[in-house]
């Protein structure tokens, strides 16, 4: 059998959920955004919960090898505490919940500060889960190790009679390969671009995005390498930091991409602080990153539809058509293929997950079934009179 990895991007509106399914069956889920109205047949949003459960059932399992939360914004964690089996409290356990063999979180997620009325918010629950797993010393990796976290951790470890460095193996710094996956064994490796420690100065909302998880996912298929740039909600300056730092360390190859999950639902802020009228002009280093795209590469925007119509140019909330224009221009320049929007394929009324195949031949987009009769059969037609 030919080695084929799969990459899936789910139509969750302006939100993120994607998944890597390796040829050997291992699964890594990035973010989880299930919105209640997605359960409604007439809503274009996917019923993520049912979809993921069905996929796992088809694969005859009830867990993920890894679930990575890039950061704790609602559109990246929404519904997760209903869906996953959480180790830290019995109320998040029970029949039908999906287990997480290893949880990946940026350090900022353990440092979230919550007011009293936020205590039952999902980001707090996930913070508790991450803290619990870290203290238990298993089933978690924490990305970056800021001093605040050490300050919190050291006394806790002392209470347990453990040395301050007892959890060091559970921390991953920027610029290294994430342990647990290898090109030889799994055909994939995850290289951590972000967060840097300086991105985690305090636990406020502003910093969440700055301290989000950004990875280069490198696939190896029969000797050929292909790169997937997986970015949370980073803004242009973080991206510039990454380009600068990566180049400084001589890791330029980690900036290349065959597939780029662009940040923040196609917000212009990921390109520049200025939107531009017709098209955003990316900052120099961001532009360099865009030009790292390989021939036949794809861009994926995890967002609502982003059509080139007059109204789009006046939107304040992402997606921004000006940003799309900039992305598409650069994609053409590198000989890339398509700029795909999760909520647009195969149509905006009932989008389906975007599925990419990573094979020896490279990254290709496997279309959901064509329209016509199959599409009609799969959907509820309007009522007849």
């Amino acid at each position, binding site marked *: 059998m030919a080695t084929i990895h799969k990459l899936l991007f789910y139509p969750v509106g302006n939100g993120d959920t994607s998944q890597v399914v390796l040829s050997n069956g291992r699964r890594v889920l990035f973010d989880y955004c299930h919105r209640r109205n997605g359960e409604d047949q007439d809503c274009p949003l996917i019923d993520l919960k049912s979809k993921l459960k069905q996929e796992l059932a088809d694969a005859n399992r009830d867990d993920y090898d890894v679930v990575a939360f890039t950061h704790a914004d609602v559109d990246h964690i929404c519904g997760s505490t209903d869906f996953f089996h959480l180790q830290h409290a019995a109320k998040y356990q029970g029949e039908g919940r999906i287990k997480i063999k290893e949880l990946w979180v940026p350090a900022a997620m353990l440092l979230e500060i919550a007011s009293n009325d936020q205590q039952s918010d999902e980001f707090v629950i996930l913070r508790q889960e991450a803290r619990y797993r870290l203290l238990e010393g298993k089933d978690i990796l924490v990305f970056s190790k800021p001093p605040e976290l050490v300050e919190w951790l050291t006394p806790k470890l002392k209470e347990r009679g453990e040395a301050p460095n007892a959890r060091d193996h559970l921390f991953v710094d920027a610029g290294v390969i994430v342990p647990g996956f290898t090109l030889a064994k799994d055909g994939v490796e995850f290289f951590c671009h972000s967060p840097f420690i300086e991105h985690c100065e305090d636990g406020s909302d502003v910093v969440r995005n700055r301290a989000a998880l950004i990875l280069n996912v490198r696939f190896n298929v029969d000797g*050929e390498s292909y790169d997937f740039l997986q970015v949370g909600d980073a803004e242009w300056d973080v991206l510039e930091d990454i380009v600068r730092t990566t180049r400084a360390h001589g890791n330029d190859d980690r900036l290349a991409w*065959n597939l780029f999950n662009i940040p923040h639902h196609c917000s212009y802020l990921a390109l520049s602080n200025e939107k531009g009228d017709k098209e955003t002009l990316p900052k120099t280093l961001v532009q360099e990153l865009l030009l790292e795209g390989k*021939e*036949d590469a794809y861009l994926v925007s995890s967002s609502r539809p982003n059509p080139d119509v007059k109204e789009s140019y006046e939107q304040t909330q992402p997606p921004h058509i000006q940003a799309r224009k900039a992305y598409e221009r650069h994609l053409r320049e590198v000989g890339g*293929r*398509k700029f795909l929007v999760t909520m647009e394929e195969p149509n905006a009324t009932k989008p389906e997950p975007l599925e990419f*195949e990573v*094979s*020896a*031949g*490279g*990254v*290709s*987009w*496997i*279309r959901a079934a*064509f329209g*016509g009769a199959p599409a009609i059969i799969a959907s509820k037609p309007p009522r007849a009179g």
Partner: protein
Amino acid sequence: MDSYHSLLNVEEVKDVSDLALPRSFALHEAAKRCDDFTVIQILKHCDGEEARLEIIVVDVECDGVPPKNPGGIKYRERLAFCVPRDPKLLVEVLALRKGFPILMHQNNNGPDSPASLCLYFEPPAAVLRTWTPENFLRRVQWWLEKSARGELHPADQPVEQLFFVTKYELVLPWNFGDLQKNQGQRFLIQRGQPRPDGGETFLVDASADQNPTKGRITPIEITLPAVTHRHVERDPITLGQLADLLNARGVDIKVALDAVLRDRVNDEGATEQADDPLSVILLHVPVSRGPGEPPERIARRAFLVMAGALRLGEKLGVLFIHGGLYFREVTDGVLAPRPKTDWRELNLYPMEVLQCNDAAAARRQSGIKGEGPQGVLVGVGSLGSAMQNLWDRCGWGRWTVIDKDHIKPHNLVRHIAYAQHIGVPKVEVMASLHAAVTQGARGFVPVCADATDLTQETVVKPITAACLVVDASTTLEYPRLASTQDGFGRHMSVFITPDGNASVLLAEDADRKVRLRTLEAQYYRAVIHEDWGEKHLDGNLGSFWSGASCRDISTILPYSRVVNHATTLAEQVQLVTEQPESRIRIWVRDPEAGAIRAYEVPVHGERVLSLDDLDVFIDYGVEEKLHALRAEAAPGETGGVLLGYFDFNVNAIVVVDALPAPPDSMSGATFFERGVAGLPEAIREVDRRTAGIVQYIGEWHSHPPGHSALPSRDDMFQLAYLSLGMAQDGLPAISLIVGERDLRVMKGQAKG
């Protein structure tokens, strides 16, 4: 930057509304609606006033094309959709990018012209039945994606050949490769009959008669250096193009042709009339998996040239014509004429090279894995001949057939023989029909003899050597005799019931622990007890002919019924041969509905009890039944009658069944007196169901708990009584006693 082929003799259509053909307009609109297609240009090719072709040039994007595909298809390709005026013709798709790969499923357009994609496998009429512009566009994308992934070939499509359509075929014998290794082997080509559409099939003949007479052509054969797997190239359309193509592979075809053609003429010259109307060039191309590896097979390509060898020689400048005679030209030295080049313009017509199947190819095509056994088929009557024919065609097994009969006129109604075979022994008929299918690709031995005559070496030798002997003899003689013989191969009996509505397979196990003899008996027991047995053997001739006729089909029966069962049995023998177990299987067909139901009868082992001059055979199925009836009646005794048959040809008594005690029987702790209520009717029914084969053969009774089967005084007395009764039919009597753990059979025979 990609460069593109430009189309010749076309002019631009400035406005879509100027498109004259409805199909091209619809196609243009569909392409415009589809995001993956971008219309680049609209062209037309005119024939006088009217557009003969309208051409829509598009760029298509295919996301399913892997970026690094081995074929070299790109994500974005430029295509020309050539829409012919004739609505019965398909839209031709040309790939315009220079450097578009040469792949299978391209029509043969010749070098330096755009590739023409062969989108459909079906003929145009079948495609057009459901053709829409939208599904055509999808098909184009599908073709590109599948080709890029190397997934576009039907199972039996040779990988290296273009999917061209030619009217000419060259057919090689099945063993062409081996014949070719023979140094002295020469081939001739026999022209077939021209077909109404102008097509023609040429047969390569390797027979001993090697005189190149009229209508037989000596092919011009050239062997090329090895190429690697998956190498595909276009067919040249002129001899010059072929020369260029071969030149690129280091072969100078002119030198090769010169040598061959010079040899066709001796010093006296050759007459113009001696020339053929055409020549066949046959290229042998060794194919290896990778560079430097030994060739794993030879691919062959052939071309037709519409000039005989002599005229070709003249064109090439190796021969010259003078006074109606061809002579050799001086080709070197000062006298040599200037080299000619007009030969380059000679047209070549590609021929589809086909090869006759050998056994392995026939099996592959039939989806059969195993080679099949070294087998013997006993009896090639109606059923046997039909089964043999099926096995011949699928290449299963190597067969010896044994039969002593010959074909009579009435046989033609239900036999694969033809009128020309009347009077010919059936085995000879089978051998010639076998050869007509296989052309000697497989062994086949006809033995015209009586299979039951084991004194004949021609009979015993193949049966002993065979792994499988299929008895389709319709009599009981052979299977019962074979059951007595150790050292024979595994046997199976196949037969059709007299009315043609059911067929039966009795299969011994691979070790022959269970032989046809007991399978026959157990089959009868099932006929007696199972619902399907009710009318199973109806129509038999048992009342006229002495027994043993239940496998003979009645004389009024259509061949279709025989063939129907022959197909089932031919496949079932193949399946059962793969398994070591013994089987009894029955197929019952409802001739009204055409439905067939299958039944399986569980098989029991057999044991033999020797009684001086006769052997009594009884299977464990009967024994189990007897023990069960005994246990049911305990502590009292019970009993009943024994059913079975005598066969003095093989000195055997075979027990088929034991009936339970009739209701009016008397019994106690130490005695049993068998009643009569319903018994005559029951035995009549057994007789009817089994075509008179299964009869009353004696009595059985049980002994009480704690007692063996040792006969009592009463038992001996009863046996004497039975013997006297049976003696009136000249038969012995059997008495069987079931004890606590054992079973004893006694035979009594009144001396006359």
